[in-house]
């Protein structure tokens, strides 16, 4: 016990490759002391614990040792308008914030299409307004604490240009709001987003990750979402990092009575990528849809971990994740759904379907449903397999070559998730990305 006591009081923080940049960032930040304290605590945690190790059950199949060995640069690179255009969506041309290597780019950000009482801005801007400062203080790091893991700790330590999206009561926003994170070189960036939506509001957000070059970099993001009664949020997350890059992202949502949180996550990029998505029900009668697709090739590795916690009665959670794995790629799906003793009337559905296109591809899937109440409607399942013979024959009998038939069926398999995205230019982009990978020309 003595050593434990000593350890807890040890104020010395281990030097890491991130130390110097962390101190510099902390000194330069114009932030309230509570936030600086939070950041310091988070950095101490990271310095002490580092990145998670495979011996940690949640990281058993995703070895991030390679990330720990890299020393990334800090600071924003440059991007020009034609380059940027590839990553923006016409539907949100006047409702977008663009972050380049984690720093807000004012030139390309434009939120003029949004109602005046909606706030989409950096924390630094938001702190200037008392009400917004209070909203940040009472919500930041409340859905994901810094000690969730080494990555959330490091992200929290580097909360600099975080962004706040605040939607006041009764505001319904038609225009999708796009938060675009572009990486330009061999940098580390730590996107942080806090979404607070009050009663009865409605919005659609796009959170996308893109790159200008095929380099090795780190994106380590945390998005916290706090939805009040009857709020409806559609959340499209599109991850198209470089195939050399590391992407570790966490989404944590807390929802309430009558809330509908509808998340769709598309994972196409990254050498090693991981997405944690966790939803908590804070009142009866909330609904969430947590769907996603990972499409991997080469030696890509993707891991989706999700936790949906039904603590209260009459909530609904539906989850559909699909994986398409080619070459030597590797996928991991781990979905935990808890239905606690109190949670009568729960409707929880979970499915994970994987299509292996090569003998060397591999997926580890573990859907877990833990139910402690009898009055519930729950189902879960996972499949790993190849295309159906009967479907292949049907297409071939119409004159499609075996290869084309296989690719078209694979496209159809992925489309079930992509079709959820109602924003036409994202859907087109993803269709093209999927078809390109499969070498199918549908003339879209």
């Amino acid at each position: 016990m003595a050593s434990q006591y000593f350890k807890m009081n040890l104020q010395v923080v281990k030097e890491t490759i991130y130390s110097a940049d962390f101190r510099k960032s902390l000194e330069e930040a114009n932030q309230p002391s509570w936030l600086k304290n939070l950041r310091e605590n988070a950095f101490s945690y990271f310095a002490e614990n580092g990145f998670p190790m495979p011996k940690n059950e949640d990281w058993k199949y995703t070895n991030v040792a390679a990330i720990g060995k890299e020393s990334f640069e800090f600071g924003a690179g440059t991007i020009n308008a034609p380059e940027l255009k590839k990553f923006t969506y016409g539907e949100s041309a006047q409702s977008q914030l663009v972050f380049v290597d984690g720093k807000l780019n004012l030139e390309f950000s434009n939120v003029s299409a949004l109602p005046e009482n909606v706030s989409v801005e950096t924390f630094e801007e938001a702190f200037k307004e008392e009400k917004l400062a209070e909203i940040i203080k009472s919500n930041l790091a409340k859905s994901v604490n810094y000690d969730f893991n080494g990555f959330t700790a490091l992200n929290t330590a580097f909360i600099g240009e975080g962004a706040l999206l605040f939607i006041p009561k009764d505001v319904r926003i038609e225009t999708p709001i796009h938060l675009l994170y572009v990486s330009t070189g061999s940098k580390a960036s730590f996107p942080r987003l806090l979404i607070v939506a009050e009663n009865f509001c409605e919005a659609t957000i796009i959170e996308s990750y893109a790159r200008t070059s095929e380099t090795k970099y780190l994106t380590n993001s945390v998005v916290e979402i706090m939805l009040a009664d009857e709020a409806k949020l559609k959340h499209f997350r599109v991850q198209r990092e470089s195939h050399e890059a590391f992407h570790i992202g966490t989404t944590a949502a807390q929802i309430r009575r009558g809330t509908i949180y509808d998340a769709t996550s598309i994972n196409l990029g990254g050498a090693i990528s991981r997405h944690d998505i966790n939803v908590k029900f804070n009142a009866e009668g909330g609904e969430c849809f947590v769907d996603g697709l990972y499409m991997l090739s080469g030696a890509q590795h993707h891991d989706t971990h999700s936790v949906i916690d039904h603590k209260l009665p009459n909530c609904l959670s539906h989850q559909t994740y699909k994986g398409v794995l080619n070459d030597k790629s590797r996928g991991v799906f781990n979905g935990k759904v808890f239905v606690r003793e109190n949670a009568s009337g729960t409707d929880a559905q979970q499915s994970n379907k994987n299509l292996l296109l090569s003998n060397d591809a591999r997926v580890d899937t573990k859907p877990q449903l833990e139910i402690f109440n009898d009055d519930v409607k729950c189902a879960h399942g996972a499949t790993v397999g190849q295309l159906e013979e009967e479907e292949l024959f049907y297409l071939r009998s119409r004159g499609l070559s075996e290869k084309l038939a296989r690719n078209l069926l694979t496209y159809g398999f992925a489309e079930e998730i992509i079709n959820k995205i109602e924003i036409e230019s994202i859907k087109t982009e993803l269709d093209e990305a999927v078809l390109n990978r499969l070498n199918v020309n549908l003339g879209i």
Partner: protein
Amino acid sequence: MLLEIKDLHAGIEGREILKGLTMNVNQGEVHAIMGPNGSGKSTLAKVLAGHPTYEVISGEVIYEGKDLFELDPDERARAGVFLAFQYPVEIPGVSNSQFLRLAYNEKMKHLGEEELDPLEFNDLLKERAKIVEMDSSFFKRSVNEGFSGGEKKRNEILQMAVLQPKLAVLDETDSGLDIDALRIVAEGVNKLRNPDKAIILVTHYQRLLNYIEPDFVHVLADGKIVKQGGKELALELEEKGYDWVKAVGS
């Protein structure tokens, strides 16, 4: 001659189902293949289309002067063989128009003719869809997904209308159809009848033949043709039942 089937023996999983079937089909002809359940009707349809789980044991099928079994299923399709499925397969995530355009263009490529872009193809599709009274809301829907039994069968005939096969094999296209759907499907097939094309109708019941008049009727029992005749044979069969031909066959 378009199709010659000579002493065909075929089966599935080591079980012989067709036990020496011989028949000829000329361009412009409509042949009905009738027979009780298990007589081998659907096996014949699937063997002609090249279904991978059916095996040919012996005999030959000559299509346009060439050995049909030398061709893969997709090569047969591009060469003009079409099977309308008894149970059309659902293809989630792929829209009817995407699928049909791909199939159409594969065929055009094979023929060395011009492929169509989505807009051009849409015009063609709209035109052909009239044949089976389908409206354009079906084009954007996933292939057969959530279609009723009748809609699936109409969709098969739509595919036939788009692909314009030389030899269409309709496998129990009438099964599971109510009287209105049967009429639409049958009228669709009649519109596609022409002197260059042949149709093989595989059916258990005579009622389809009230709508689509065959030139020849072949009655199949235990893997062999046991009776052949004109359209009047179907009526006789309806009256006397399959026991009659089974008795003839044995």
